[in-house]
C-alpha cells in the first residue's frame, strides 16, 4: 500500500482514512507493506509504528518511510514554500539539496524512484495507492512487478480546483486510471465526477464509502462560551471548497432572527482572513469566534460545546467531520454536494448555495428541542454503524477478486 501518514493535525482526511483502512484490513488478516511519504509536517518518526503496536496489528503491517517534502494536500506553490523554508532552516546542506526535488513534480518523481526501490525487495500480490502524488510510484511498481493495481480516489484535482487547469496533476491521475485494474472511489459523488471528467472505463470504477473512527468518550465536560447563547459550529479547512462564505451568510439570517446565537468557525486555510473580514462586513464581529487551527485532541471540546454542526461544502468527496460530530451527539447539517450525504439519513441536508434554507434549518435545530434531541440520538447511532471494518470488508473482497489465490491468515 502506498498511503499517507496519520496527520499530526487536521490538514485533511486522507491520512486518517489510510490509517483506519490499513488497521481494519490488518485486523481482517490482510498482510500489508505500507510505503509512506514522510515529511516535516508529520508526527515524529516511528509514531505510526507505535500506533500499530498499540492496536496489536504490527505483525501484519510493515512500514517503510520515504523522506519527502510533499504532503497529501499540497499544490506546487505550497511545495515551493516548504522547500525554501527547509533549505533555509538547514542552511542549505548539500545532502538536502540532493534529497529533495526543486519543485513538486520533481519531488513526486523522487518519491516514485525511492518507493520502487523499496518495492523491488518486497513480496506482494496487489498494489493499492491513494490519490495522485503516489500514482507515478504505483504505476512504476506495477510495470516492474506486473501485479494488479488499485487506485483509491479520495479527491480529484478536477474537483479540488473546480476546473481542469492543473494539467500535470490531471495527467498523472489519468495515468493512474488507465493503469488501474480497479478504481475505488470514496463516494458516488467522486465516482460521478470521475466518469464525467476523466477517460476511464466505468466497469472498473467502484465505490467503497469511508467510515468513522470510534472516538473515545470525552473525560471533561465541554466548555461553554456563554451560558445563554447557543453555538453553531463550522469546523474544517477554511477554503472555498468547504463553503465558509455560505456559513457566514446564513449566520447573518440566523442572527437577525435570534440574537442569542454565537458562531464558531474553527480551522485555518487560505480563506480565513477573508472570512473574518466578511463576518465583520456583515456586522457579525461580536457573534463570531475564529479559534484558528485545532488539533485532533480539541475535537471533543469543539463538538461538545456546539448545539449544531454545519458542513456547507461546495464540493466534498466524502467528508468525515460530520460523522465525528454525530458520534459526539451533535446534530448535524450537511450540504447535498457531499459524498457522506449518500450514507446518512439522520442529518439535515441542504444545497450549499441555499443560504436561506441553511439558516432555516439551523434555527429549527436551535428552537425545537425534540428535533435537536432526536438528531443527536439517531445521528449518534447511525454514525456508529459506519465502521471501518465494513469498508475493509469491501476492500478485501476487491483484493480477492484481483488475486483469488491469496489466503487470509
Amino acid at each position, binding site marked *: 500500500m502506498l498511503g499517507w501518514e496519520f496527520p499530526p493535525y487536521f490538514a485533511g482526511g486522507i491520512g486518517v482514512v489510510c490509517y483506519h483502512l490499513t488497521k481494519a484490513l490488518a485486523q481482517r488478516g490482510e498482510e500489508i507493506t505500507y510505503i509512506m511519504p514522510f515529511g516535516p509536517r508529520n508526527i515524529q518518526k516511528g509514531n505510526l509504528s507505535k500506533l500499530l503496536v498499540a492496536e496489536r496489528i504490527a505483525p501484519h503491517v510493515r512500514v517503510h518511510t520515504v523522506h519527502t517534502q510533499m504532503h497529501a494536500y499540497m499544490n506546487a506553490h505550497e511545495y515551493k514554500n516548504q522547500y525554501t523554508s527547509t533549505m533555509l532552516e538547514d542552511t542549505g546542506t548539500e545532502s538536502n539539496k540532493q534529497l529533495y526535488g526543486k519543485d513538486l513534480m520533481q519531488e513526486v518523481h523522487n518519491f516514485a524512484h525511492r518507493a520502487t526501490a523499496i518495492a523491488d525487495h518486497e513480496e506482494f500480490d496487489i498494489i493499492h495507492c491513494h490519490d495522485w502524488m503516489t500514482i507515478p510510484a504505483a504505476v512504476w511498481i506495477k510495470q516492474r512487478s506486473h501485479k494488479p493495481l488499485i487506485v483509491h480516489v479520495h479527491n480529484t484535482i478536477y474537483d479540488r480546483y473546480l476546473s481542469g487547469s492543473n494539467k500535470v496533476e490531471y495527467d498523472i491521475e489519468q495515468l493512474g486510471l488507465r493503469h488501474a485494474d480497479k478504481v475505488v472511489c470514496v463516494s458516488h459523488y467522486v465516482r460521478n465526477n470521475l466518469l464525467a471528467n476523466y477517460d476511464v472505463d466505468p466497469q472498473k470504477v467502484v465505490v467503497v464509502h469511508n467510515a468513522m473512527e470510534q472516538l473515545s468518550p470525552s473525560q471533561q465536560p465541554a466548555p461553554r462560551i456563554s451560558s445563554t447563547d447557543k453555538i453553531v459550529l463550522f469546523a474544517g479547512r477554511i477554503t472555498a471548497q468547504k463553503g465558509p462564505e455560505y456559513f457566514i451568510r446564513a449566520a447573518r439570517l440566523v442572527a437577525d432572527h435570534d440574537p442569542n446565537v454565537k458562531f464558531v468557525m474553527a480551522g485555518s486555510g487560505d480563506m480565513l482572513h477573508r472570512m473574518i473580514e466578511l463576518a465583520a462586513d456583515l456586522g457579525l464581529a461580536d457573534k463570531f469566534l475564529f479559534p484558528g487551527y485545532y488539533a485532533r485532541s480539541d475535537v471533543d471540546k469543539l463538538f461538545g460545546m456546539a448545539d449544531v454542526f454545519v458542513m456547507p461544502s461546495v464540493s466534498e468527496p466524502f467528508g468525515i467531520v460530520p460523522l465525528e460530530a454525530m458520534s459526539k451527539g451533535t446534530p448535524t447539517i450537511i450540504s447535498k454536494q457531499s459524498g457522506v450525504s449518500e450514507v446518512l439519513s*439522520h442529518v*439535515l441536508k441542504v444545497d450549499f448555495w441555499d443560504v436561506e434554507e441553511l439558516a432555516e434549518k439551523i434555527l429549527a435545530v436551535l428552537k425545537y428541542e425534540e428535533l435537536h434531541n*432526536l438528531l443527536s440520538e439517531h445521528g449518534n447511532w447511525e454514525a456508529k454503524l459506519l465502521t471501518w471494518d465494513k469498508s475493509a470488508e469491501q476492500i478485501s473482497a476487491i483484493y480477492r477478486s484481483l488475486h483469488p489465490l491469496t489466503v487470509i491468515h
Partner: protein
Amino acid sequence: MYFQVHQPHRLKRYGMFEIGVHSDYFDHSLNEEILHKVSRKCYVPTNKLLLKLINEHQGDFKFSFSVTGTLLDQLEEFAPDVLETFKDLARTGHVEFLAETYYHSLSYLYSKEEFQEQVTRHSQRMQELFGQTPKVFRNTELIFNNELAKHIEELGFLGILAEGADHLLGWRSPNFMYRPASTSSIKVLLKNYKLSDDIAFRFSNKGWEEHPLSAEKYAQWINSANGNGELINLFMDYETFGEHQWEDTGIFQFLEHMPRAVLEHPHNDFITVSEAIERYDVRGEYDAHNFISWADMERDLSAWLGNNMQHASIQALYRLERRVKELQDESLINDWRKLTTSDHFYYMCTKWFADGDVHKYFNAYDSPYEGFIAFMNVIHDLERRVKEREQELVTA
C-alpha cells in the same frame, strides 16, 4: 371487503422565515397533482371496474367504503367528475359507506370533543353526498381499544372495525363476529390480515412463493375457511389497486375475476359490513385493553406516536384547540383541523427511516425531521394568528 379511501392535505415546506409573513400552509399544487395522479391510476379505473362487477353480479357482489372528508373536499375542488363516479357506486345500493373522523385524525386520543365533532361532520357528509347515514364506524388506521368501542356504542353505531391482532386472538380465528370487551350490543369485525395483505402487500412480490396470485388460487384460500369461520373480512387501502400495486402487476385482472371465482362456491357471498352485523351472531369476546392498529408488524401507535417529535407536535396542536374554537373563526378552525390528519405525524416517523421502506414511500418530505420542522413552523404561525385575534377581541 372494505376499502379505505384517503388523501391528506399535505403541507408546504413552510419555513421559519414565513411565520408572520403568510399563512398559506398547504401545498395546493402538490395536493392537486397527487390527486390527479391517484385518480388516474386508481380511483377512476377501480370505480369503473367495481361498478361493472356490481352490475354483472346483480346483487351478489357488494363491498364497503370508508372515504375521508379530506379526500372528498379535494375531489370536490380538483376533480368533481371523479367524485361523481363514487356517487354512481353509491346509487347502485350495493355499496355501504362507513363512518370515521372527517380529517382522518388521531383526535380520539387527544380530544373526545373534537373526535365527536369530526365523526358527526363526516356522517353528515356521507348523507349529503351518498344518501346514507353510516351505522358502522372505523377509526383512523383501525386504531382501536375497548374504551373506544364503548364510546362508539354510546354514539349509536352498531359495529366497529378492528385489526385481527394475533396477540389478542390467540388460537381463535378472525373469521367470526366478536363483541368488544366491556360493551353490550356493538359488534366488532376483525381484519383477516393474512388474506387482506396477500392482495394489498404481497400481490406483486416476485419473491413470494405464491406469486403470481390468480383469482382461482385466492378463491380456494377463501373456500378453505368454510367450516372454520363465518365471514372473512378483507380490509385494505383502496389505493392498493393501481397505486400501490401498479396496473402492470395484473391487479385489475385479479380484481375483475376474483368475485366470480369466489362466488362459484355455493356457500360464499359478498356482503356489506352492516349486513354481516345483522346476519352473524357474536361468537366470542375481543379484549383490547391497549390500543391496537393495522400498521406495521407492531400493530400499535408507534408509526404516529413513536418518537418525541411526534409527541411534541401533536401536543402543541391540541393545546391550541380550545383557543382556536373559542374564536369561532372558520379559517382558523379549518386550518387547525386539516393539521389533525394523522399523515402529518406519520411523515415524522423515524422507526425504519434508514431502511428506506414503506414509510419513505409515503413521505412527502426528504426526511421525518423536515416534516417536523414544517409542521412546527405552521403551529407557530397558527398560534401567532390566534394571539392576534384574541388581542383584537380584547381591544374591541
